[in-house]
């Protein structure tokens, strides 16, 4: 597995984790739901910063430990394209669903967290697709 593929895969996992933390707070599983939009933006901002820091650390670690490793591979690139196609299906399906429900009394906070849920769901689809196509072939 190339360095790029591994860091790309880990980026998806880290994004899923960040999204789950924010959604869990909204659902009251841990922490407390955001009181207003500003607090939500701050939480998302912190999550993005932490994700970026985590990816920089992962990139440095992989770059050092895999110094002579292959940078790209044609099969992994093709797997990535197929996985991204499935991710786009998940994004469009999720957005369509939120569109339909948005006029049924969803608050702005509900819509915002639904969009975060779409991102988490689409990234889960992407990770699963990467594993599936890598193991089963394209």
């Amino acid at each position, binding site marked *: *597995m*190339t360095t790029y593929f591994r860091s790309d895969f880990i980026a998806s996992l880290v994004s899923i984790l960040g999204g789950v933390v924010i959604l869990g707070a909204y659902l009251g599983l841990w922490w407390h739901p955001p009181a207003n939009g500003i607090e939500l933006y701050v939480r998302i901002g912190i999550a993005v910063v932490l994700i970026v820091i985590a990816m920089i650390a992962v990139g440095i670690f992989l770059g050092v430990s895999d110094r002579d490793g*292959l940078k790209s*591979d*044609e*099969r*992994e690139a093709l797997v990535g394209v197929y996985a991204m196609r499935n991710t786009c299906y998940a994004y469009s399906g999720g957005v369509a669903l939120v569109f339909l429900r948005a006029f049924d009394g969803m608050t702005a906070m509900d819509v915002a967290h639904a969009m975060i849920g779409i991102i988490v769901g689409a990234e889960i689809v992407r990770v699963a697709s990467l594993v599936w*196509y*890598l193991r*089963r*072939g*394209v």
Partner: protein
Amino acid sequence: MARRPPIGNRIRALREQHGNMSQAALAEAIGVTRQTVIAMEQGRYSPSLESAFRISRVFGVGVEDVFSWTEPPDS
């Protein structure tokens, strides 16, 4: 399982004929991962034209000596 491409290959046999070359050595020679070479040998992946030429150059044979069309003529 994904639909197998209708292309067969003799990569494994050619590796064995060339001093039992390892999958890793072939992968490094053509610029792909070992997993990609494994997938090629198992028929789960058809390489790009460039990689097909690189493989044939490693073994010193023509592309059609490495790869062959396997789909039945009436399909």
